[in-house]
């Protein structure tokens, strides 16, 4: 397969390490001429690291990169572009204040006597966009067009500049169905012209619609490269989520399908463009797991429940009474808690001490007029450092100096300190070591034994199976299945995720 003359870009044994983590571990990747090659994987799988190594945004630590038979070592994205590798990102990396023509020809405007020939430039821009079936006013600012048109302009520029390999990094994330169709038509045209196209997306539909081959990464390692036609959806999801399906099943019947009264009821709850309306009942002392691929609407569900985004349909009830969850403040007042997915961005405040981070949410709920005294804060911090076994030399240490698992526990402590009745954990075990992992899971069990209701979002299916009394499966921003009791197995979850909308579709 190596040295295949039809390969336009091959990467062999790519290694990239960051302090404390191996982002890519001897990954191989090959791209053929006239092929759309989907690159898939969950968060942290190494997709974007691999792309950045190929486009020169990162320098790889080891491995070889061959373009069109010659070994290359791009030192930045401009260099990669000159060599023939162009990239188009989800957020259009062009200048909205310049005209379409200027964006297409920035730095290579046609000139005569040192002056830019605007007429000639417009003519060329029109001709270039005509290849993509687009006829617009090229002297208008790029900003005045829809994201889809901007995306096409970005593709036109990238192809015009590089012309061998085109990398599309989640180009469809903010497009509607029609626009996606237009984009796909263009990608198919480019494929027919012999370009190699790398396509990154979270939408499996689109992968099966467009891609010839699929490469899956997981935890920085290559899981495999397969022909799309011979890869059933189910197998693809298994490849992405890992676990050679040791068919984890509910070991303990102990998670007695709670039969208590429904404490939290969300009916027809949703927000247009974010997540389709869903019904969700959570009983007291119950753990509801939420499973789905990245981009399926997991985090959106959590943020909707916590009021980060305001629902535009449906109602929420707590203990039978209507509740107002229009903002995180309101949600906290209703005794909700939320540990977000990216603790570095949304959770910890790195410069503040462990104590201050723990006291934060409780103080916020009390309001500024009733400050927690130093003694209260100390007692609070000490109690949770002990209870959750947060490893820190003392409570005044800046939290950024702690390990990931301990930071996670501190955030958990922050919410536990507010005595929540409803706690949402988004990926509580991501990026923490095995020991801390087990402790977090043990904690989840304890909390629910104390009568707290939990919603846990996780990509780790075994984990969900182990502690959930019910599992909700999400796909394409909708709640598509609910598994209870003995139905909760990794196999069933994978099936539900992979099920094609509209039965009878080929794999």
């Amino acid at each position, binding site marked *: 397969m190596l040295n295949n003359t039809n390969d336009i870009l091959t990467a062999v044994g790519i290694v990239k390490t960051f302090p404390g983590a191996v982002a890519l571990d001897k990954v191989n990747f090959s791209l053929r001429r006239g092929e759309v090659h989907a690159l898939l994987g969950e968060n942290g799988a190494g997709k974007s690291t691999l792309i950045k190594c190929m486009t020169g945004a990162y320098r790889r630590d080891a491995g070889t990169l061959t373009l069109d038979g010659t070994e290359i070592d791009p030192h930045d*994205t*401009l260099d990669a*572009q000159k060599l023939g590798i162009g990239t188009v990102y989800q957020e259009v*990396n*062009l*200048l*909205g*204040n*310049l005209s379409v023509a*200027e*964006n297409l020809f*920035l*730095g290579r*405007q046609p*000139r005569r006597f*040192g*002056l*830019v020939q*605007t007429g000639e430039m417009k003519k060329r821009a029109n001709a270039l966009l005509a290849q993509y079936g687009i006829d617009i006013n090229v*002297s*208008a*600012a790029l*900003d*005045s*067009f*829809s994201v889809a048109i901007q995306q096409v302009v970005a593709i036109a520029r990238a192809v015009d500049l590089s012309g061998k390999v085109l990398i599309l990094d989640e180009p469809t994330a903010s497009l509607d169905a029609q626009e996606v169709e237009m984009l796909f038509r263009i990608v198919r045209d480019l494929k027919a012209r012999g370009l190699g196209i790398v396509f990154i997306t979270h939408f499996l539909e689109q992968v099966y619609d467009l891609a010839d081959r699929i490469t899956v990464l997981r935890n920085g390692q290559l899981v495999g490269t397969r022909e799309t036609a011979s890869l059933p959806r189910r197998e693809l999801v298994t490849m992405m989520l890992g676990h050679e399906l040791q068919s984890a099943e509910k070991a303990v019947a102990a998670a007695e399908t709670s039969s208590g009264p429904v404490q939290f009821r969300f009916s027809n709850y949703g927000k247009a463009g974010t997540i389709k309306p869903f019904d969700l009942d959570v009983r007291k002392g119950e753990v509801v797991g939420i499973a789905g691929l990245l981009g399926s609407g997991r985090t959106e569900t959590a943020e909707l429940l916590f009021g980060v985004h305001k629902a535009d349909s449906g109602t929420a009830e707590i203990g039978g009474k209507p509740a107002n969850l229009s903002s995180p403040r309101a949600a906290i007042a209703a005794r909700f808690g939320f540990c977000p997915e990216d603790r570095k961005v949304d959770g910890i405040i790195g410069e503040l001490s462990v104590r201050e981070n723990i006291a934060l949410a409780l103080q916020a709920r009390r309001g500024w007029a009733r400050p927690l005294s130093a003694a209260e804060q100390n007692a609070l911090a000490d109690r949770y450092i002990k209870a959750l076994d947060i490893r820190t030399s003392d409570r005044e240490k800046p939290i950024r100096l702690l390990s990931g698992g301990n930071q996670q526990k501190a955030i958990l402590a922050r919410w536990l300190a507010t005595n929540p009745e409803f706690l949402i954990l988004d990926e509580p075990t991501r990026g923490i070591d095995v020991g801390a992992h087990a402790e977090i899971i043990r904690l989840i069990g304890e909390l629910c034994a104390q009568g707290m209701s939990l919603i846990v979002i996780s990509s780790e299916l075994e984990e969900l199976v182990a502690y959930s009394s019910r599992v909700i499966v999400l796909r394409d921003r909708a709640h598509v299945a609910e598994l209870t009791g003995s139905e909760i197995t990794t196999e069933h979850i994978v099936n539900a995720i992979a099920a094609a909308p509209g039965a009878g579709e080929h794999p």
Partner: protein
Amino acid sequence: MNQKYLPLIATIIIFIVSYAVCAAQYPNILSTRVVGNLLTDNAFLGIAAVGMTFVILSGGIDLSIGSVIAFTGIFLAVMLESTSIHPLAAFALVLVITTLFGAIMGAIIHYLEMPAFIVTLAGMFLARGMAFVLSIDSIPIKHPFYATMKSFYYKLPGGGRITLIGGLMVLVFAIGILLAQRTRFGTNVYALGGGAQTSALMGVPVGRTTVLIYGLSGFLAGLSGIVYSLYTSAGYSLATVGVELDAIAAVVIGGTLLTGGAGFVGGTLVGVLIQGLIQTYITFDGSLSSWWTKILIGALLFAFILMQKAILLLSRQNKRYS
């Protein structure tokens, strides 16, 4: 209609309407003498404002302009008084100094990743300080060459005069417009204003462009200083305090977005003329305090900032429903 022309058109309409209002009250304001004086009196501000337009278009700011003009004036006065150097040689020398001064500020802004506000603020104090070092007195320039240059003018029908410095300002604006609209450098300036990081990713030589922009601003501040010394026939280290703010006001009233990336050099000319017109009106009236200029400029500036915000909001909505 292309939306980017809206602020420029608004400025031009305001200028025409206010000129008409002034003319209705004082018909003499239409005479070519007034027009000629408008150009002459605002020549130094206009030339400096062209440099400021480039700086603001790129998303930066240059606070050193006023000090550099004063430094240039006192430098010329001292040189012509105490040496036998020809004024033209002194002009060339001072232009080299101010251009380098601007370029160094540009290099510091880019390579040390410092905010333009801070760097040019330091430049402002430095240039003013150097002016004081040269002399703290107001020194008259009596060189015969100055008289010769002042005697050049183009006589308009009706007795008005386009003086050398008034004509120079118009020429600088013409070159500035060409530079902004029809060269790669000009597009790069707009690109920087749209986003420095994206520009770099698209291959714009960010460092070189930044140095050139501030170098250009320094050069034009120097030229403006020469014009000012011709205009006043003197050099004084306390002159032109706050001219950088007048220049910024002219640029913004001229329709350039203060955050960079959108606007026109030609609009700045109208912005300068609006300021000059208000001043002229107050002179005609005779009873108004000249502080009314500042008050009106302040009101205009505020109105323009509001208008820019409104246009931005409108264009967003249009996009949503298109």
